[in-house]
C-alpha cells in the first residue's frame, strides 16, 4: 500500500516539476507586465523542438551542451516575440495583448507543424534512464529523479536571480509599479526583455525534459500551457513560490484523483477541487490581495 502511495507521489512530483517549469514563465511575465502570455505553452513546445532539432542535426552533441543551447535559442525567440508583438501594446488594454498572444501561439504551433511535421517525436535518450527498483516494490527510473532534481535546481536559481541580483530586483520593482520604476532610471525595456528571456529559457528546459521522458508534438503546448496557467493562478499569480506550489498541487490532485478516485472524472474532480481552493483563498495560495485605492 505504502509503496503505491510513494509511487504515485513520485509520479505527481515529476508531473509537477514539468508544470512548474512552464508556470514560472507565466507568473514572471504576468508579474511584470500583467500579461497572460497564452503563447507561453507554445514556447515550451518550441524549446522542446529546438532541442530535438539540435540533437538530430548535430549528431553526437552532448546533452550538457544541447540543453543550455536550446534554452538560449528559445530565450532569444521569447525576446523577439515580445519586441515584435507585445511591446507596442504594452500600455493598451489587457485584452488586446491576450488576443495577440493567442495569435502568436497558433502561429508557432502551425509553423512547427509545417517545418518539422505533425508527428510526435521523442528526443533520443540522453539522460540515464535505468530503472531503480526498491525493496517495497516502488520503481523509479533515473531520469524521473533527474528531472525533479534539475527542475528544483532551476527554480532555486531563479529565486536567487529574482531576489538577490540587481536585475532581479528591477523585475520585482516593475511588478510593483511599472511607471515609478522608470522614474528611478531603470531601463524598462531591458527588464521586460530579461523577464521574457528567463521565462522562455525555463520553458525550453521543461520542453526538453518532457521530450525525453514523453514525447513532443506541435500541439502539446495547448493543453500543458493551460494547465500551467491554472497552476500559476492557483498558487497566486505573480508569485514564484506560488507557481511552484500551485504546479505540484495541481499535479498531485490530478494523479491522486486518478489513483484513488476515478480516472474518468480526473478533469472534473481536479478542477472542482481547485475551484474550492480558490473560493477559500480567492487570491491563490501565495497571492497577495491587491490593495485597491478608491
Amino acid at each position: 500500500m505504502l509503496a503505491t502511495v510513494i509511487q504515485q507521489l513520485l509520479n505527481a512530483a515529476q508531473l509537477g516539476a514539468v508544470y512548474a517549469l512552464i508556470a514560472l514563465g507565466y507568473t514572471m511575465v504576468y508579474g511584470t507586465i500583467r500579461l497572460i502570455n497564452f503563447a507561453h505553452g507554445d514556447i515550451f513546445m518550441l524549446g522542446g523542438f529546438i532541442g530535438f532539432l539540435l540533437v538530430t542535426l548535430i549528431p553526437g552533441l552532448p546533452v550538457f551542451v544541447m540543453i543550455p543551447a536550446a534554452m538560449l535559442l528559445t530565450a532569444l525567440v521569447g525576446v523577439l516575440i515580445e519586441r515584435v508583438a507585445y511591446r507596442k501594446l504594452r500600455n493598451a488594454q489587457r485584452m488586446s495583448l491576450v488576443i495577440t498572444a493567442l495569435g502568436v501561439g497558433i502561429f508557432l504551433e502551425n509553423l512547427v507543424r509545417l517545418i518539422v511535421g505533425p508527428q510526435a517525436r521523442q528526443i533520443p535518450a540522453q539522460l540515464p534512464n535505468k530503472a531503480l527498483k526498491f525493496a517495497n516494490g516502488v520503481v523509479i527510473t533515473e531520469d524521473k529523479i533527474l528531472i525533479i532534481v534539475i527542475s528544483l535546481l532551476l527554480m532555486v536559481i531563479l529565486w536567487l536571480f529574482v531576489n538577490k541580483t540587481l536585475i532581479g530586483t528591477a523585475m520585482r520593482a516593475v511588478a510593483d509599479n511599472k511607471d515609478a520604476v522608470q522614474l528611478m532610471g531603470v531601463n524598462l525595456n531591458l527588464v521586460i526583455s530579461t523577464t521574457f528571456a528567463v521565462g522562455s529559457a525555463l520553458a525550453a528546459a521543461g520542453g526538453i525534459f518532457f521530450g525525453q521522458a514523453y514525447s513532443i508534438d506541435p500541439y502539446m503546448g495547448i493543453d500543458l500551457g493551460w494547465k500551467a496557467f491554472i497552476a500559476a493562478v492557483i498558487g497566486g499569480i505573480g508569485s514564484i513560490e506560488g507557481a511552484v506550489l500551485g504546479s505540484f498541487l495541481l499535479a498531485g490532485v490530478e494523479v491522486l484523483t486518478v489513483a484513488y478516485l476515478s480516472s474518468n472524472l480526473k478533469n472534473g474532480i481536479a478542477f472542482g477541487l481547485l475551484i474550492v481552493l480558490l473560493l477559500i483563498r480567492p487570491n491563490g495560495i501565495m497571492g497577495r490581495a491587491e490593495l485597491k485605492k478608491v
Partner: protein
Amino acid sequence: MRRSVWLPAALFALACLSACSEKGVKIGVSAPLSGDIAALGQSTRNAVLLAQEEINAKGGIKVGGAMQKVTFIVEDDENKPEAAATVFQKLISQDKVVAIIGSQSSKCSNAGAPIAEAAGIPQISPWSTNPNVTAGKHFVFRACFIDPFQGKAVAGFARGKMKAATAAVLYDVASDYNKGIAEVFRDEFTKGGGKIVNFETYNTNDKDFSAQLSKIKGSTPDVLFLPNYFNDVPLQIQQARKLGMTCKVIGSDGWDNQELIKMGGKDMEGTYFTNHYSPDVDRPASKAFIAKYTKKYNTQVDAAAALTYDSVYLLVQAIEKAGKADPKAIRDAIASTKNFDGVTGAITFNGSGDPVKGAVIIRIENGKFVFDSAVN
C-alpha cells in the same frame, strides 16, 4: 469600414468563380491536415495524390464512353466537426464534387454525413469506425470495419490464442474511437469468460500514465489492452515496462503507423494489434501500393493511407461501373460492390454502408509488423 468589406468580398467572389470552371471528374476530400491528427491528414493527402497521379497517367476515369481526368480537391477539416461541416458544404455546393472521401475521425464524419445525405452526394469514409456514421443513411459508406467487430476480434484473440484470463484496459475517455472499442472489448471478453480487472482512462494529450499504470500493476492482469493511437501507445508501454510490468500487450488499428516502432523501439516487441491488413501477406495489390507509396513519399504506409487509397479506387470503380458522373448512380454502384480487391482486403457491401471485411492480427517482431492470424 465599408472599404474593408469590399475587398474581401471581391476576392471571395473571384475565388468562387474560378472554382467553377474546372473540367473533368471532381472528387472532394476532407482530411485533418491541421490539428491534433495532422499526421493522418498528411497520409490521407499522400494517398489521394498518389492515386490521382496513377489514374490520370492512364488517361483518367472511363465515364460512359470517354476518358475524363479526375481532380481531387483536398480540404482541411482541422479534425473539428464544425470545420468538417463547412468543408463538406463547400465541396458540395461550391466545388460541385460528385462524391466525397472523408472524413477520417468519426466525429468529423458524423458532422459531414447529414450534409452529404441531404445533398445526395455519396460519401466514403476511409477510417471512421463509429457505427453511427452510416446508421440510417443511404449515401454514406466506409472502407473499414466498425468498432463492434474489431472489439470482438481483439477479445476473441485475447481469450483464445493469448489464453488471457484477466485483462486491464487503458483508453482515452475523451475520444470516441478508443472508448468504443474499449467497451466492446470489455463486454466480449467478459462474455468469453474472462475478467476485466482494471478499466482505466486518460484524457487526450495526456502523456503521463504512471498513475493509471501503477494502479493496473497492482492487479497483475494477464494482458493489457491499449486501444489507442500510435502516438500514445509507445509512451504507455514504455511507462508500463519501466514500472516493472511484464504482462502481454494488445491493441487495435489505431496502432498502425511506423511511428509506433520509431518511438517505442524495443518495448514494442512481442505486442499484438488488430488491423485491416498486413503488409507481408501475399497480396499483389498491397505490395504494389506499398512500394509506390514508400518510393514517392519516403515514408511508411499507415492505415489511413491504405484505407484512403482503397476508398479512392472503390469510388473510381463505382464511377466507371455507373457509366456517368451522377451522384445517385455512383451511390448505387458503390452499394453493389462485391469483392473489391483493395489494399486492405476484399470489400463487399451487403445492403448497408458498412463493408463485410475481415481483420488481421499483427505481431510486432524485430521492429516489423508481422502477420499473425486472420479474423473473419
